[in-house]
């Protein structure tokens, strides 16, 4: 594969798309980047995972800085959960160095299926909770009280201050560990798992969860990237166009995120994830069991 203008243009365009959607949904964009590198460019999955991890940091810096500036990010909550995501990322990336290619593809397909279903099921959750005032009228658990994890932000789409009380820190910590593991193992930010846990189990509104997750995925992906870099798996010629594209996409996505309602986004996201999950599963089955399924154009 030659580092030509054609190669750079296609990779950059895919990365802009991934960064844009990633910023809107609080994910790193790796869930688009890894399938694109594997299915479109036919790269080995470990190289794709390594390149994707670096691009996840890029989207975190770009999108994360903007959410921090707008005070949508809950810094204390994010830094607390980072303890668990980084430990997860270390265990996941160590595992990735030893796992078979087909198994990584199958696990990735499983993650995409989960994300698709989770996004569709939770599409109206946020609007209902804010309208009912449920985010502000909850009791914090012991850890949330001890570490002052609760917060608030101004929602531009609703034109109101949304305060919330954080609870469920135990389940949040556990899911953060799993999200970190998914990050190190599969080259994603793990944002969907964290956003969904913060939103549904920790009583954090969707946008605050997205902003907080966006900051957390940077240091989480940094842990995996360090290990992949030292193993010689980070190829700069792949990383560079991807990082540039995801940064540009994340900047664009962050500009419009606080002005959009999440239900429409989640529906589009669910369909897209299902499509990519199928593509990765087809590749895994072909690789391990020589079962050839129709590829649906991927």
């Amino acid at each position: 594969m030659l580092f030509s203008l054609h190669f750079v243009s296609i990779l950059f365009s895919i990365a802009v798309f991934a960064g844009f959607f990633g910023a809107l949904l609080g994910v790193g964009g790796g869930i688009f980047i890894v399938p694109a590198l594997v299915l479109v460019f036919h790269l080995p999955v470990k190289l794709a995972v390594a390149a994707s991890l670096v691009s996840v940091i890029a989207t975190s810096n770009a999108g994360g800085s903007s959410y921090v500036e707008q005070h949508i990010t809950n810094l204390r909550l994010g830094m607390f959960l980072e303890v668990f995501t980084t430990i997860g990322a270390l265990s996941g990336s160590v595992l990735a160095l030893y796992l078979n290619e087909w198994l990584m593809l199958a696990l990735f397909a499983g993650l995409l299926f989960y994300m698709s279903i989770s996004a569709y099921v939770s599409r109206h959750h946020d609007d209902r909770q804010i309208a009912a005032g449920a985010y502000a009228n909850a009791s914090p658990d012991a850890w949330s009280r001890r570490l002052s994890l609760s917060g608030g932000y101004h929602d531009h789409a609703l034109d109101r201050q949304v305060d919330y009380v954080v609870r469920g820190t135990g389940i949040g910590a556990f899911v953060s560990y799993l999200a970190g593991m998914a990050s190190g193992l599969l080259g994603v930010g793990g944002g969907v798992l964290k956003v969904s846990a913060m939103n549904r189990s920790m009583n954090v509104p969707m946008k605050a969860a997205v902003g907080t997750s966006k900051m957390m995925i940077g240091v989480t992906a940094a842990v995996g990237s360090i290990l992949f870099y030292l193993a010689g798996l980070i190829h700069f010629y792949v990383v560079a166009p991807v990082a540039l594209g995801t940064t540009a996409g994340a900047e664009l996505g962050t500009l419009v995120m606080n002005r959009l309602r999440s239900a429409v986004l989640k529906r589009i996201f669910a369909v897209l994830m299902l499509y990519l999950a199928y593509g990765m599963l087809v590749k895994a089955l072909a690789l391990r069991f020589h079962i050839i399924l129709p590829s649906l154009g991927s």
Partner: protein
Amino acid sequence: MAQQLQPTAANVYSIVFRVLFWGMVVSTSLFALGVFRALQHPVAIPLAPIPLLSFHATLHGLARLDPASLMLTATLLLILTPVVRVVLACIAFAVDRDPKFVAVTGIVLAVIVLTVVLGRLGLR
């Protein structure tokens, strides 16, 4: 939230924002320059693990705008940005006399150090 912040808490927000923003600006510029230079002399992308460039070789490469050195530096800066963010937040919490969050950020830094040690030991 912004109106309710203590001055020191607002400082942490400001520090985190600046680190993330400038990390992004510098690494993006180096990546862009690296891609531009690489497109002038297209090479085949290797599909196997690549040997690490030494610090010395990277510095020499940067001096003559070698694309691999530019992109390597951009990648390392990108990886370091969130790490620096945690270090500075840890210091800000220490200045703020918030020992619980000094411990929280300290654990994250310990995991990062452990990762570097494991990587240097040659996990493959």
